[in-house]
Structure formats: C-alpha cells, structure tokens
C-alpha cells in the first residue's frame, strides 16, 4: 500500500490510456484512427493481436496478457507481467512517443492492467494511468451485460465510454442501453459514436482522470441535458426494476454492480480519512472495483485527489483550491455488494465537526 500522503507530483510521467471493450465493439477501429490520423502526437501502442492493426510501426508492440499474482498476501492483487516488461523496454525509447495506449482483449478483466500502474515502482516512476476507455457496442451491449461478466467489468472500470454503432439502434434502444450503462457506472463520460467517430482529445490524455466529473454530477441527473428522447412507456423484461423519477428519466438498478457517491461540504480530517480509506479498501477491496475522489482536508489549501483499483490506491495533492471554488469533498465507489451503510457511516466519522 503506497503512502498516500507522501507522494509528490512527478515530472513528465507518460500518460497511459487503457482501451477495453467487448469483442467486436470497435476497439480496433478506434486504434486505427489513433494511429493513422494526423494529430501531431506519437503513440506507443501495446496490442494483443498484431494482425488486426493494418499499420506497420515500430512503436506497436504485441503483448501476451500474462496476469501475475503478487506475493504480497493480497488475493485480488494481480498485475500484467508482460506489461511491466514492455513498459520497461519502452522507457528506453523515452522521447520517441508522447503517450502509451494499452489495448486489452475483449474478454479481459481491466483490473490487472490498471493495477500494474499502482503496484510496480518502476512503472509508477515513468508512467501514469490516464484513463480507462471502454468501447461498447450499442446494439449488443445490453445482451452482453446479462451474459458476459467481462463486459460488465469493462463498463464498471471505465472513465470514458465510447458507445459505438449508435446508427444501428433506434432511439429507444439507445436510451435503454445508456440507462443500463448508467446503472453500473453513472460517473464515466459517455460519448455516442458511429464508427468510433469521437474527438481523440475526448478519449486520450484526459489529465485529471476525468475526476472533476464526479464533482459536477448527481447520478440522478446524469441524463439531464442529453438530447435523446426519454421513453417512459418502454416495457422491460428481466430482473431489473425500473422506476420513473419526478423528472421523468428511466433509471435502472443493476442487481450485480452498484455505485455509491459520498459528499461533504465540511472539510475532512486527513488523520481520520486516510486510515479509514486504506482500511476500507484493504477489507472490502475485492468488492470495490473502482474508487476515486476529490478531497478537501481541514488545514490544507490544496485539493487532494485519489483513485483506486480494488485494494490499491494512489493519491496526491493536485492543486490549490481556487478562490471562490466550493471546497467540497466527493468520493465515488463502483463495485459489487458494496456495504453502503458501513461506508457511509465510516465517511461521516471523517468529517470535521
């Protein structure tokens, strides 16, 4: 477990984008765009299938997706061993590329690849996880969420979701699949695309890990402002229960995956909060897939940001709070069987009175 408070912002860490998505969703289309478009940036791309990318480039590296357990007594602590090796090798060519993209196979669990950036000291020194980008197929995602746990994990892990092939579904179907996504992950930035036509700046080098979004949004109002029609009368089958809110948006609860958001206008006591958070992810980390937060501590003029994957956390002072900016703390957790009341009660005890 890294010492959350002592980490300082490093100089010039190379941003790494993890690109996930179930089979056939359009990852390769997006990769080909990134590699072929004239955007003035050079990307090193770690792919799992050489053949799919029709571009010859010595910065495209084949990976083996070797998932290694760490000998640190942490059962869910797995890393991508091949990635540790490849990143080590890539660092010899520092300066030849601006950022790294790691493509995972369609059936991959995103946890080991994300955890690689938390657990390995040498990787951490040179690279930082910028965002997990998940490409989802608008036509088939709803079905995959029911029968493929990998697809659900990929949505839960995402910081950015590219909902692709929207031209192949009706407006009602699109609203349906978006509601399904939001039931799992209300906090990811969602882009609707055809043939992955999304501005690359919306998926690459997101900087603050799209963290600010968790401050901006109430999960209940996520769909507000979106320009699709809300279909109140659509009938649903299956085990999900849906209910209309007063503002008329469709809202699902996913029976398997939940998210939890905490906020406080009063500053947090860092001496209570840090031990509580570390304890929480140590004991409940198998259930918590992702955690992230922006924190306002008492006697601290800096915004503190953290992110976590399962039992691993990393955090840092990000910048000073601006004049007039509300010093508000906000945390989100996405996971399975989250012990909501325990988390809420624990968080309450970290708020200064």
């Amino acid at each position: 477990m890294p010492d959350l408070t002592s980490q300082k912002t490093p100089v010039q860490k190379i941003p790494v984008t993890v690109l996930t998505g179930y089979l056939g969703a359009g990852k390769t289309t997006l990769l080909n765009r990134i590699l072929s478009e004239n955007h003035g940036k050079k990307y090193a791309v770690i792919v799992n299938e050489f053949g799919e990318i029709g571009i010859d480039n010595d910065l495209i590296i084949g990976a083996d997706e070797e998932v290694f357990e760490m000998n640190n007594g942490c059962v869910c602590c797995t890393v991508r061993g091949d990635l540790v090796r490849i990143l080590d090798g890539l660092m010899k060519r520092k300066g030849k590329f601006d950022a790294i993209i790691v493509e995972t196979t369609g059936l991959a669990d995103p946890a080991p690849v994300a955890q690689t950036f938390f657990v390995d000291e040498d990787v951490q020194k040179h690279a930082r996880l910028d965002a997990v980008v998940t490409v989802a197929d608008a036509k088939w995602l709803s079905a995959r969420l029911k029968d493929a746990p990998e697809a659900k994990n990929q949505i839960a892990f995402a910081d950015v979701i590219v909902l692709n092939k929207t031209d192949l579904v009706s407006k009602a179907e699109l609203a349906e699949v978006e509601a399904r996504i939001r039931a799992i992950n209300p906090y990811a930035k969602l882009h609707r695309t055809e043939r992955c036509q999304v501005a690359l700046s919306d998926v690459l080098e997101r900087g603050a890990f799209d963290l600010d979004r968790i401050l901006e949004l109430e999960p209940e109002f996520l769909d507000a402002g979106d320009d699709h029609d809300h279909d109140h009368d659509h009938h649903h089958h299956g085990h999900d229960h849906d209910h209309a809110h007063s503002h008329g948006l469709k809202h699902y609860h996913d029976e398997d995956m939940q998210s939890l958001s905490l906020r406080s206008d009063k500053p947090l006591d860092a001496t209570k909060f840090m031990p509580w958070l570390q304890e929480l992810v140590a004991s409940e980390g198998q259930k918590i897939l992702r955690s992230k937060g922006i924190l306002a501590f008492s006697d601290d003029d800096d915004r503190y940001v953290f992110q976590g994957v399962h039992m691993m956390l990393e955090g840092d002072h990000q910048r000073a709070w601006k004049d007039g900016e509300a010093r508000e703390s906000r945390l989100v957790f996405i996971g399975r069987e989250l012990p909501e009341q325990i988390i809420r009660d624990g968080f309450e005890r970290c708020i200064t009175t």
Partner: protein
Amino acid sequence: MKQFDPGESASIISVTDQVRPIAVGMPVTSVHFLGEHAAFVGAEESVAMVDAEGEVSRVSVHGGGILCAVSDGKRIVMGGDDGKLVALDAGGEVALLAADPKRRWIDNVALHPDGAVAWSAGKTAFVRGGKSEEKSFEVPSTVGGLAFAPKGMRLAIAHYNGVTLWFPNMAATAEVLEWAGSHLGVTFSPDNKFLVTAMHEPALHGWRLADTRHMRMTGYPGRVRSMSWSAGGRWLATSGADTVIMWPFASKDGPMGKEPAMLAPLQARVSVVACHPKQDILAAGYSDGTILMVRLTDGAEILVRKNGTAPVAALAWNAKGTLLAFADEGGDAGLLAL
C-alpha cells in the same frame, strides 16, 4: 535490517579528481570492456566505444531500443526491440547473429564461456553453440532472465513461478525449480552450487542446486536490478536498498539462516553494483549519482563521483581490475584508472 552509523563518512577519501570525464552524449544502460575500449551501451541504437585516450566513437548496432546486453570481454551481444540479436567486437565490427521472423523483442541474452549464446523472445529461449545448431525451448510464460551455468551446457530460464534448467545438448527433460511469483533476473554462483533470481517484488530467491533447498532473501525497499558476485564468489552484492546488501555464499549453506552484510549506506538507493574481478572491493552507484568504491573486509569507502546527477545506470571493471567505467542515465560517464 540493522541500523548503520554513518558517523565516519564525513572524512571520506575522494578520487573524484582522478576520473576522466567522458561525454557519451546519449542515455546509457550498461558498460563493458572490450580489450582496451570501454563500450557504453546506449538505451537506443548505438554503442559508444571509448579508447584509453578518452576518444569516443559511436557504432550503430540496433534500429531501436537496446533491451539487453552481455559481454564476455571479447564481444558484447545485444538484443533489441527491432527483433535482432547482434554482436559487437573490440574492433568495432558488428555481426547480426539472429533476427526474429516476427520482429519480436529480444528481451534477454546470455553468453557461455565456450562462446555459445542464448537469447529469448517472448516465451521461447534459444541457444546456439559454437559447434551445435540452434535449439529452442518454450517455457510457460515470458522469459524474465537467462544465465548459463559456469560448468557444462546448462541454461537457467527464469519465468513466472520459477526457473527452468534446460540442457540444450541432452535429451533429458528440463528441471523446474518452483517458487511463486515473477522471476526477472537469474545468476549462478561461480562455484555452480547456487542459483539466485531477482524477483518482480523486492526480493531475491535462491536454490541450493544439490538439494533445491529454498533461500528467501527479502527486506529490500525496491526491486533488485543489479547483482554482482565478489571475487571467488564469496558474496553476492545487490542493489535495491539504501546500502549495498551483501549475501554470504562462502559456506555450503549459502545465506540460509544468515543476515546479509550492509555496506556503504547513503540517503539514496543503490542502483548498480560491480564487484572487482580480483580483490575484495566493489563499486556501487546510487540513485543520486554518487559512486563509491567499498572494501568488503571493513566497509572502508572511497568517493569516485559526487551526488547531484541522474541515477547511475552502468558500472564495470576491466578484466584486470585496473579500470572502472561508469555512466549515469543521462549519459554523463567517466573512466577511473587505479
């Protein structure tokens, strides 16, 4: 690990004024002596050959990153991310030894005293001897390190969850030494009695080859990236802590049940170690750029290079032990004649 009293370090002897500075002009990852030349292997593309007068000449060896390099004093064999295995000799001649048909990275390389060379790409290890033809062996996961045994034709292949001992010239099945975790470096003791790996987590693991008894060597704050056997193989010097950690291998039990010796503590992480080929002296490079020479018998230190630069990336003695070459990650290098 026990506390060390740094009380005497204020009066350290310095030889910094005797170092001949060398401007290599590129990031360096290792240095080797080829005859009278110090050869600084770059992170990418080329090797800088430096003669006794300090003249630098660059030799192009790879079309990309240089991922691994090993030398027997006659040649340096290197693997690159261009999928090529090349050799560079003292005359500056470059020979292409092998090229991976799929341009996979050549991650590891090892040299046998009789001239045989081993290398790996992905999960496959290859051996080509002076006389025998090329042979290959596939292990269950990506090869993390390669080392030839000092006697006989036996190759240790480190990988996830252990080490495979392969006899390329025998039909016998390979022997597997198991230990959970990812093994990224491997070395035989010079007396051929012990095998030690550097793991992905900050620890070494060892086996006594006679009975495959395990030796756990833990307590490091960081991953061990540099290991060097002292003259005669009495000690294994290692990086990874803020002192040089020295594991005792002189007795038949090796370091089993023993504490390591700790030399040359600084407020910086040891990044490279290189033991003198003949005497009980080692050179240690640190993450703050410091280089010390340390006498193993009493821990006496001599300052070779002051701190305040990039981490030391490369250290090597010539075969006679009369020259020490070094370089930091940024390419600032030097030669010290003793």
